[in-house]
């Protein structure tokens, strides 16, 4: 007999969240002081942006069990869409990010519509093809409005007259947005919609029998996921003030997937764990830039072979063991508290 798994974390989490929040607020000052420049803060901004992007991927892959190998396409659509709206239609940056992500998720819904009928492997192929199409459009645009292979310049975020032109300033906006997106994710997951996603991931046939419109919820998951990742793309555009066509490359999709799998799927902390570790690893291994995809491959292999629940799942196992409870040896690791 196993011990019952606790259903919800409850009160003791609030203390941990408060500590994390204070640490997060002080981080830029501390890092700039330690390193003498704001490059580490720049990396922190990317971490926050990627947390949103990868949490979005988690909604479609971790929760509803549909693979997408083309999420970079949404990231790029968010970045370029937002940049173009600012450059050509004089949108302020934040409304532009919002509008571009709504547009990108609408395109995501259109893609998911036929794709929701496809089985796993065909879906993954169609998402790869979609990513390729977006890359081609960005690099071969009419009148070179996207800057083609050079990339697109756009403006920094102007928050009520306060220009967020440095990572140290953008950081706090990114932190607030990441918190908002994570909160929204817990709300979605903790509802009829979230349970429908999980039901579909586990057993489509039974989900149908339980009154769940499987196609509808697959499309919903894909659309929400696209919104997250494209919004992250918009943030990237206006944080850096520039977007590179490389963001639409397959490599970027693989990075998102590596972060997700490495951190653990189907949980709130999983993407955070994954993004932070993979980003720090990639930074530490900067001298081996040419081998990045190779490094992702190795990370994925580690997960598949040794950490089926991802880093978060493994750390939870260790925590349980240290807490001297009888080991639950839950093979599924991270997925159990998603339910």
């Amino acid at each position, binding site marked *: 007999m*196993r011990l*019952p*798994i*606790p*259903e919800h974390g409850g009160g003791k989490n609030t203390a941990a969240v408060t500590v994390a929040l204070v640490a997060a607020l002080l981080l830029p000052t501390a890092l700039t002081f330690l390193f003498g420049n704001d490059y580490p803060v720049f990396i922190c901004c990317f971490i926050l942006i990627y947390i949103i992007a990868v949490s979005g991927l988690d909604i479609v892959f971790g929760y509803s069990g549909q693979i997408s190998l083309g999420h970079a396409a949404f990231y790029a659509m968010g970045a370029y869409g937002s940049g173009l709206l600012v450059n050509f239609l004089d949108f302020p940056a934040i409304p532009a990010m919002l509008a571009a992500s709504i547009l990108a998720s609408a395109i995501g819904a259109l893609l998911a519509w036929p794709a929701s009928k496809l089985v796993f492997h065909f879906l993954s192929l169609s998402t790869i093809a979609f990513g390729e199409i977006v890359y081609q459009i960005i690099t071969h645009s009419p009148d070179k409005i996207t800057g083609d292979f050079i990339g697109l310049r756009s403006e920094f975020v102007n928050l009520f007259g306060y220009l967020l032109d440095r990572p140290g300033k953008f950081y706090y906006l990114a932190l607030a947005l990441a918190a908002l997106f994570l909160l*929204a994710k817990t*709300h*979605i997951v*903790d*509802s*009829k*919609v*979230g*349970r*429908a996603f*999980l*039901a579909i991931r*586990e*057993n489509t*046939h*039974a*989900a*149908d*029998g*339980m*009154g*769940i*419109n*499987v196609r509808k919820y697959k499309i*919903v998951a894909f659309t929400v996921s696209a919104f997250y990742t494209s919004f992250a793309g918009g943030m990237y555009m206006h944080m850096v003030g520039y977007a590179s066509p490389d963001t639409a490359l397959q490599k970027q999709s693989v990075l998102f997937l590596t972060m997700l799998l490495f951190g653990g799927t189907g949980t709130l902390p999983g993407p955070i764990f994954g993004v932070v570790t993979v980003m720090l690893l990639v930074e530490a291994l900067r001298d081996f830039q040419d081998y990045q995809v190779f490094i992702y491959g190795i990370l994925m292999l580690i997960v598949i072979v040794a950490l089926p629940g991802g880093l978060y799942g493994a750390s939870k196992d260790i925590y349980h063991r240290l807490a001297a409870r009888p080991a639950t040896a*839950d093979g*599924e690791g991270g*997925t*159990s508290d998603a*339910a």
Partner: protein
Amino acid sequence: MLLEARGVTIRFGGLVAVNHADVTIDPGRITGLIGPNGAGKTTFFNCISGVHKIDGGEVVFAGRRIDGLRGFQINEAGISRTYQVINLFRKMNVLDNVMVGMHSRLRQSFWASLFHSPGQHSEERAALAKARGLLKFVGLEGKAGYPAGNLSYGEQRLLEIIRGLASDPKLILLDEPAAGMNSVEKAQLDVLLKRILGTGVTILMIEHDMKLMMGVADYIYVLNYGSILAHGEPAEIQRNPDVIKAYLGGE
């Protein structure tokens, strides 16, 4: 009558798995469906519950044609089911399995969930309370946090039944609920079926355990090679020479 299947027919290639089956289910009763292995009983369930599209005939439920509807729509219409081969969400915990079963009765929209509106919040709380009540109904309240796949076979059957009841169906289809149960569990099932009936849910049940079937069923249909061979009260069925022959010849 609650459900009427008229001339329901389905073919798999050359095989006519269900052949012009006429079945009538009256409300407030337990109707049994028996027949030798491979007779087409599960396939008949699949025809009613929208897993298969029928090739002929019609199904009328509570005055409305339901053949041609998809599985999830039939659940919404008020028919839920269990499966011969256990079909739970194994990695989800027991409580969440029941919560998923409530899907078609929860009104909360995506936006209400996203913003965690007060209405959504109170509906979730009510759903949770109802799910716990259902767990208690079959004595699984102590297992709420276990992954469903960790339950014993008999417990998994019970969980499938309450997951089906969670959508407040008018009719529940039970496909061999006693399979894999020990004799104690079977005796409890007998009582449970009557308690379910007491809550106003009509039952259509496939079962190979004749002792259980003859004890609880009000009316029985016998399926053989896809066709209805006989129907009547349990006592009549037990005496029916065609039925006896089918069973002796079939097994």
